[in-house]
């Protein structure tokens, strides 16, 4: 092996390593793995949004065939109340510890039986009585309980004098935007199988980071982390919904402790909707002022989101206002509104996705008011350094994305007047948006062993939830070792492989790659010694510069064409193109799949997705795939995506993450296209038929009717 040989696995399109397993049904996900002596747990969940469990009557259930027992708050094993997550203590982990019901869908009991049918029947026979208390789901930016959001991700922006700048502007747009509660909807429902061997807890679990799940379990059970062994070989999607230690995992560990058998909990789809997590509702007020010649003078972005008092959470909607545009005055305010809601969790492009819908819609409204081309308006206001932090960008190829996208999309031929294009009865419109998403790296460990047979075993606590991590990291390791990818065997998805960041925050691949690259460097230094096997292990904690003095972001430009049927209000996306700057691309085939998938989720958010709650009970009224529509084949055109040449200088290999940027800009691009087609702004997602139809029916472009109707549907309680 020549250490300087350039193998070039990075940069080449290769199909997924596990592709053969996935097309033959051989890839085993958590609930697929057989287990001798397995029993099944079925959750029973609260139907009130706030209250106390008065009684759990298990008398009938306990007499039913196959039932081993019932856990509730009176008899469940005790957990450590100090256990928490990234932000500190997390009350949502403390299942079956007391009688309090904090939200509809909260687990109040677990029935364990020999077969899934028996567990399900016994769960249906369980009689749970709750004393309901008045709940509050009345989300509003000015709710009395509203408070400033945590600034753990950084301070608010307060650059310049916003009021003075606005007063001097030729055009000021001030508009309110709303996005609904949304559900992650990974196709694999959360599942876990847990068993104890002495004081060691073993588990198979569907999650986005086995190591962090093992840490939380260790804290909950007050045992050493080394005694917790979590494996997650194949995971059927996550999108943030499996980022934490889920209820299925916690309850399975409790039940297996109690009954001394391996317990599998495979959540039902309804439970995934009501019990796991969601993207919170947001309300956003964007104020943008510009000179007559299209220079922005002021950008104000206020955003509020709902959260549960059980745990801290940040939906950082206002981040892009600090990054995308130059303006003498920029002010952001992020507000958290604690309500009796399902605790939110990051969902693909947290903050950036709803935030971008508001900001990039408002920018489009400024272009409309100025009567300038929205691409030109954006290009005119690009900052040379980060407008709020004042730091230089490590790399910023947004202009290239916009220009390349505009060229491919044929933007130059666009007539910017709304309702200017028709095809038969259909109104045709095009729109675009830009987006940024924070990039970076978190500590991880990796070990590489040079084996006797000349192969290399790379062990890293990564997870592949569909991101292609297994394939991408094999290429990274091959290049770092200077060998052919065929000689590299990758082990991932196991908490025993050591400390590692999970698949989240668009930082999985960069974090794991960094550790692998460093381990390879160290191993190569020792390969002169003929002893085999030889292993090098590196922990990147001490190697990461968290204050690099540069703004590290990924960027995108998304272009959409829609057809709107004025008779039905139906919006169909006919073309969707995204151009991305995400550093050096490891595997273009898989990277394209990722960002296309992100755009499909953005399309789905724009047109379909909305968790609807009954105001009287606070319960989800549409917690299944019949009621909560996610984009299906027929909704999705042939989405196009590409990458501009880019290199991230803060990363040893030039990489940035790309799991979330695809979702961020898409909803605004589609909403702007709908305006261009119809002449009506859609400031509330999703762009439902009734929201498109109402202005048409009223014969005018007003949002009054739409907003009034929205209030009637979603407020109350």
């Amino acid at each position: 092996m020549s250490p300087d040989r350039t193998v070039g696995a990075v940069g080449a399109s290769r199909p997924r390593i596990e592709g053969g397993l996935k097309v033959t049904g051989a890839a085993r996900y958590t609930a697929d793995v057989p287990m001798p002596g397995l029993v099944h747990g079925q959750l029973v969940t609260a139907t009130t949004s706030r209250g106390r469990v008065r009684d759990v009557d298990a008398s009938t259930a306990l007499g039913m065939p196959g039932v081993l027992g019932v856990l509730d708050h009176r008899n469940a094993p005790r957990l450590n109340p100090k256990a928490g997550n990234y932000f500190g203590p997390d009350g949502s982990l403390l299942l079956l510890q007391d009688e309090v019901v904090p939200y509809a869908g909260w687990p109040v009991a677990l029935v364990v039986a020999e077969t899934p049918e028996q567990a399900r029947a016994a769960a249906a026979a369980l009689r749970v009585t709750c004393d309901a208390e008045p709940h509050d789901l009345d989300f509003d930016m000015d709710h009395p309980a509203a408070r400033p959001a945590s600034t753990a991700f950084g301070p608010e922006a307060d650059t310049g004098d916003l009021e003075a700048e606005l007063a001097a502007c030729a055009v000021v747009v001030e508009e309110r935007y709303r996005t609904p509660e949304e559900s992650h909807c990974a196709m694999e429902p959360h599942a876990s199988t847990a068993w104890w061997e002495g004081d060691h807890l073993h588990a198979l679990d569907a999650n986005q980071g086995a190591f962090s799940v093992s840490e939380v379990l260790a804290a909950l059970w007050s045992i050493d982390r080394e005694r917790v062994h979590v494996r997650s070989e194949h995971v059927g999607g996550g999108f943030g919904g499996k980022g934490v230690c889920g209820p299925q995992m916690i309850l399975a560990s409790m039940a297996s402790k109690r009954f001394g058998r391996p317990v599998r909990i495979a959540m039902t789809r309804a439970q995934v909707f009501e019990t796991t997590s969601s993207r919170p509702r947001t309300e956003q007020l964007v104020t943008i002022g510009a000179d007559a010649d299209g220079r922005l003078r002021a950008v104000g972005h206020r955003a509020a989101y709902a959260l549960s008092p059980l745990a801290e959470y940040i939906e950082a909607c206002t981040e892009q206002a600090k990054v995308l545009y130059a303006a003498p005055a920029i002010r952001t305010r992020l507000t958290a509104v604690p309500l009796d809601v399902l605790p939110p969790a990051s969902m693909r492009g947290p903050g950036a996705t709803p935030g971008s819908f508001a900001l990039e819609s408002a920018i489009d409204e400024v272009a409309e008011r100025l009567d300038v081309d929205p691409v030109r308006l954006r290009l005119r206001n690009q900052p040379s350094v980060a407008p709020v932090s004042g730091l230089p960008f490590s790399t910023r190829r947004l202009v290239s994305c916009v220009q390349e996208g505009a060229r491919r999309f044929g933007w130059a031929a666009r007539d910017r007047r709304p309702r200017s294009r028709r095809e038969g009865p259909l109104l045709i419109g095009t729109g675009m948006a830009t987006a940024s998403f924070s990039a970076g790296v978190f500590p991880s460990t990796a070990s590489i062993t040079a084996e006797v047979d000349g192969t290399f075993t790379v062990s890293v606590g990564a997870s592949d939830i569909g991101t292609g991590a297994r394939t991408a990291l094999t290429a990274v390791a091959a290049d770092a070792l200077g060998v052919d990818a065929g000689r590299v065997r990758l082990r991932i998805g196991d908490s025993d492989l050591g400390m590692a960041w999970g698949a989240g925050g668009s930082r999985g691949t960069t974090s794991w790659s960094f550790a692998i690259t460093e381990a390879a460097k160290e191993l190569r230094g020792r390969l002169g010694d003929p002893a085999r096997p030889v292993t090098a292990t590196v922990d990147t904690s001490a190697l990461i510069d968290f204050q690099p003095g540069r703004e590290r972001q990924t960027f995108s430009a998304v272009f959409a064409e829609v057809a709107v049927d004025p008779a039905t209000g139906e919006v169909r996306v006919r073309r969707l193109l995204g151009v991305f700057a995400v550093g050096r691309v490891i595997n273009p085939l898989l990277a394209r799949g990722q960002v296309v998938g992100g755009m499909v989720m953005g399309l789905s958010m724009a047109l379909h997705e909305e968790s609807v709650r009954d105001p009287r009970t606070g319960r989800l009224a549409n917690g299944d795939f019949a009621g909560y529509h996610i984009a299906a084949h027929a909704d999705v055109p042939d989405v196009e995506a590409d990458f501009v040449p880019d290199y991230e200088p803060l990363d040893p290999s030039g990489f940035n993450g790309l799991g979330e940027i695809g979702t961020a800009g898409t909803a605004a691009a589609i909403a702007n296209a709908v305006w261009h087609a119809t002449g009506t702004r859609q400031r509330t997602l999703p762009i439902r038929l009734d929201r498109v139809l109402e202005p048409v029916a009223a014969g005018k472009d007003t949002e009054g009717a739409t907003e009034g109707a929205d209030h009637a549907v979603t407020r109350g309680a």
Partner: protein
Amino acid sequence: MTDHTRSGISLRVNDVSHRLSVDNRRTLLDALREDLGLTGPKKGCDHGQCGACTVLCDGRRVVSCLTLAVAADGAAVTTVEGLAAGGELRPLQEAFVRLDGFQCGFCTPGQLCSAVGVLAEHEAGWPSAVTADDDPERTPELDEAEVRERMSGNLCRCGAYPSIVRAVLEAAARQGGAA
């Protein structure tokens, strides 16, 4: 004493015959997964709303979560495990891998079985909701719109739809319909 909660059934699955005693409540999906260890078919919703559990039952695609095992008594079932005859990937499977027609892969067994069903249905001249309603004798051309419409019962949250459609069309072209 006879147990009225269970029934004996026979299933021919991927060309292997089985006699099973099943809980009457057991779905075909659970019988395949729990009794026969064929965990290729996935339980994405258990309510007939996602398509992850799609298998071929006597050649036609069904959502196995909405099919009771007792109702499938005597049926010939093909699951994703049975698509690669003799261990050789069929063109459809190969196209899924090469064109990246999946990410997490959880919907894939259902997409594949569904696509096999779609190609057979098209071959048999069945129209879909997007087929032009003009000539009952003409077999509709299998284009992107037809594939999207016919595959719409199979959700993919990873959003791999564009490459799934490409893979299905390619397989159809390569095999003249019998992918």
